[in-house]
């Protein structure tokens, strides 16, 4: 180091390592960044899943007290936080958004590659902070993924309100910044970097889903950031944004005054409802593309699909009050939120009918990806129907904070989004890693997951109608719940099957990555642009930018030589003459 010669030697030796770092660690390539996101979020899913298993183990025999009450609430809180923020949100945008946007719009990379890398490297510390919160005195946050004030605002309010809650807020604040970097990059890229001939009206629905998601994120995440900032001030600087006057904690009056706890709920749900749609619009797009490809039919009602995505996105900002029916709101306001919420069912139903119509009378290819996509539709319908019950404020007064709500959102959001992520993974794995996943294992994974999900969450509706409240530590001690106790034990059994089935996926994923058969360019005979690039695509994706001549859903066109026409195949006469097309 001291002598010039040593320095030169050092620089020389560092060279290959540096290029490794630039290739795999601080890469600017959207595909590498997407994979980094995929691996980290997959790890977070395992963390979140393990917490769920812990909760179910406790609920299988609550008297044994496998978890103590505080720990149980912390497990529930961190399960929700990890799954919603650090798995679903991030894998859909960070992993799928990054890998797919440039490939599906025919661009060499994102509009702002450096910002893209920065986004991942802002996300990563937020993960570390969240994980660190498990090991601080008092443990992680324990006030639910919604962290309602004042519980979350007063450090001495509950076992899960200590340092862990502060780290929770900091981690999510940083995550939001990282997501904002991603969102503005996605929007700019989709608007500005499309291949020649790819008008917005020819975008694959996956890209439309991500596009609307990014708009929602851009407008709703700052609202949570504002709330988190105020929460952190309340916790650490003595302010009283969310802490009301005269609050008693442990028999003592807290020295705060003038705050409004309910404002936290307004801010949280103004963010929170768009957020839950952020978790479903991307999946809706993915599922549309997978269903169309394996039905060998154009997606039914493309324009209606795009408009309903946009309508859902817009309406999602007008319905947050349906989470607050029991907060003492004026019944007229409640009725307004009931109506706006029920209106969302219309575009949702349009989408469902379009998926079914696409499948109708199709020569369906039952790949694992298709099975998961159809599974998504089933779960979305089941969960959407219970949503309509909950939207009626008089019904919700009874069902609010019961297992009925847990069943609702696990179907419509958690499980549905998970199924779309699986569909997308089985579908795009060949493009991401250049190898095929094992289909028989995939189908076993599908069957067990599908049964596991229904077995776990369907009975929760009945627990809810029996009045069992969510986050209840010892349901077995309440006489009125005695009759549903066996059901609760059955749920734990189903949950373990569900959890075990995911091990099959993890095995399949990694063994295919290392040893799966090599993938060709276009193994599914699909139309979208990513299938015209190598598997996996090199830096820059294509040697020459692709040129687009048609929309992505020309499947089974009468008179065409093949049952698919990639977007790069020139218009009309070319296919009649049996000319396969640009990419083969």
């Amino acid at each position, binding site marked *: 180091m001291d002598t010039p010669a040593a320095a030169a030697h050092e620089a020389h030796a560092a060279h290959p390592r540096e*290029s490794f770092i*630039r*290739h795999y660690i*601080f*890469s*600017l*390539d959207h595909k590498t960044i997407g994979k980094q996101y995929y691996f980290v979020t997959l790890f977070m899913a395992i963390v979140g899943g393990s917490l769920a298993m812990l909760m179910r183990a406790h609920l299988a025999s609550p008297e044994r007290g496998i978890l103590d009450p505080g720990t149980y609430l912390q497990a529930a809180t961190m399960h929700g936080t990890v799954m919603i923020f650090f798995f679903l949100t991030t894998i859909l945008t960070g992993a799928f958004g990054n890998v797919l946007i440039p490939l599906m719009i025919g*661009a*060499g990379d994102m*509009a*702002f*590659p*450096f*910002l893209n*890398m920065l986004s991942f490297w802002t996300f990563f510390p937020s993960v570390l902070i969240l994980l660190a919160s498990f090991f601080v005195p008092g443990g992680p946050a324990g006030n639910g993924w919604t962290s309602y004030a004042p519980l979350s605002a007063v450090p001495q309010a509950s076992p899960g309100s200590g340092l862990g809650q502060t780290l929770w807020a900091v981690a999510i604040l940083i995550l939001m910044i990282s997501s*904002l970097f991603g*969102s*503005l990059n996605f929007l*700019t890229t989709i*608007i*500005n*970097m*499309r*291949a*020649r001939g*790819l*008008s917005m009206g020819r975008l694959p629905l996956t890209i439309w889903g991500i596009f609307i998601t990014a708009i929602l994120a*851009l*407008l709703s*995440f*700052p*609202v949570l*950031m*504002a*709330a988190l*900032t105020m929460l952190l*001030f309340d916790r650490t*600087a*003595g*302010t*009283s*944004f969310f802490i009301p*006057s005269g609050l008693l904690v442990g028999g003592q009056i807290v020295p705060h*005054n*003038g*705050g*409004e706890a309910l*404002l936290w709920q*307004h*801010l949280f749900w*103004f963010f929170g409802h768009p957020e839950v749609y952020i978790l479903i619009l991307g999946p809706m797009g993915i599922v549309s593309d997978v269903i169309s490809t394996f039905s060998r039919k154009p997606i039914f009602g493309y324009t209606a699909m795009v408009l309903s995505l946009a309508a859902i996105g817009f309406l999602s900002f007008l319905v947050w009050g349906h989470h607050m029916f029991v907060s003492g709101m004026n019944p007229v306001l409640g009725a307004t939120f009931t109506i706006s919420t029920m209106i969302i069912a219309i575009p949702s139903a349009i989408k469902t009918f379009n998926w079914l119509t696409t499948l109708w009378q199709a020569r369906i290819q039952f790949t694992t990806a298709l099975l998961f996509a159809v599974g998504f539709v089933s779960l979305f319908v089941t969960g959407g129907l219970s949503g309509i019950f909950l939207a009626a404020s008089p019904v919700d007064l009874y069902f609010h904070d019961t297992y009925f709500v847990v069943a609702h959102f696990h179907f419509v959001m958690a499980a549905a989004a998970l199924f779309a992520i699986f569909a997308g993974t089985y579908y795009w794995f060949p493009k991401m890693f250049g190898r095929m996943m094992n289909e028989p294992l995939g189908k076993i994974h599908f069957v067990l997951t599908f049964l596991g999900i229904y077995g776990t969450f369907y009975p929760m509706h009945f627990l809810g109608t029996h009045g069992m409240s969510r986050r209840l530590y010892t349901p077995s001690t309440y006489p009125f719940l005695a009759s549903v106790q066996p059901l609760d034990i059955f749920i734990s059994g189903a949950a373990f099957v569900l959890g075990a089935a995911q091990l099959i996926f993890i095995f399949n994923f990694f063994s295919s990555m290392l040893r799966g058969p090599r993938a060709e360019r276009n193994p599914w005979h699909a139309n979208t642009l990513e299938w015209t690039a190598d598997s996996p695509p*090199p*830096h*820059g*994706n*294509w*040697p*020459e*930018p*692709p040129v687009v001549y048609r929309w992505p859903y020309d499947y089974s066109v009468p008179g065409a030589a093949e049952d698919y026409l990639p977007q790069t195949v020139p218009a009309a006469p070319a296919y009649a003459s049996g000319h396969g097309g640009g990419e083969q």
Partner: protein
Amino acid sequence: MPTKLLEKGTASGARGPGAGGRNRFGRGEGAVPSGQAPAARAHTAVMGLAFALAAIAMLFVAFTMTYLGHRQEGDWKPVPLPGILWLDTAILLASSAAVEWARRRLGSGDARGLRWGLTAAGTLGVAFLAGQLLAWRQLADQGVYLASHPHSSFFYLLTGTHGVHLLGGLIAVGAILPGAWRGAYSPARSTPVTLVAIYWHFLTGLWLYVFAILLWQ
């Protein structure tokens, strides 16, 4: 509109693989993709900034809506605003004018105008932040602190958050000032100046909004 956007997009794919440039982060790749034509690149950068501004605007919408919600409370005690805020507002408006003047001078090829305009804007920006700190000092001297009561909390929160964003703008001005003095910018190479100007005007507008909402009690 779609066809216009579409043509902008075509150049993007032209960024070939390899060529050494792709992995050298921070070199031309930071803010704008290097493969696009300059006009398209400027357009892309401005659009990215516009989305960032939308997010910042939402942050302030959330803060101010909460503030308005709080004011409904019975025990609401307004803070008398320090008079220096009026002076500060004038300074910020002047700095915005300086940025705009600099940008227009650059547009007509006057590198000297750009230089002095930006320098003046940066100086006025620093003066604004100093003035804000002085306002905080005056309040603190009267015993009005962050945690004193809701209105004071909001006062510090809103001015502080605005100040942090303005500090970001000052850093951006600081980043392009050396280039302006070296004569690195020209009418054909003006994107960084345009971006700074847009951001700066946005923050001036944001301050007017914040100030009005704090004044109106």
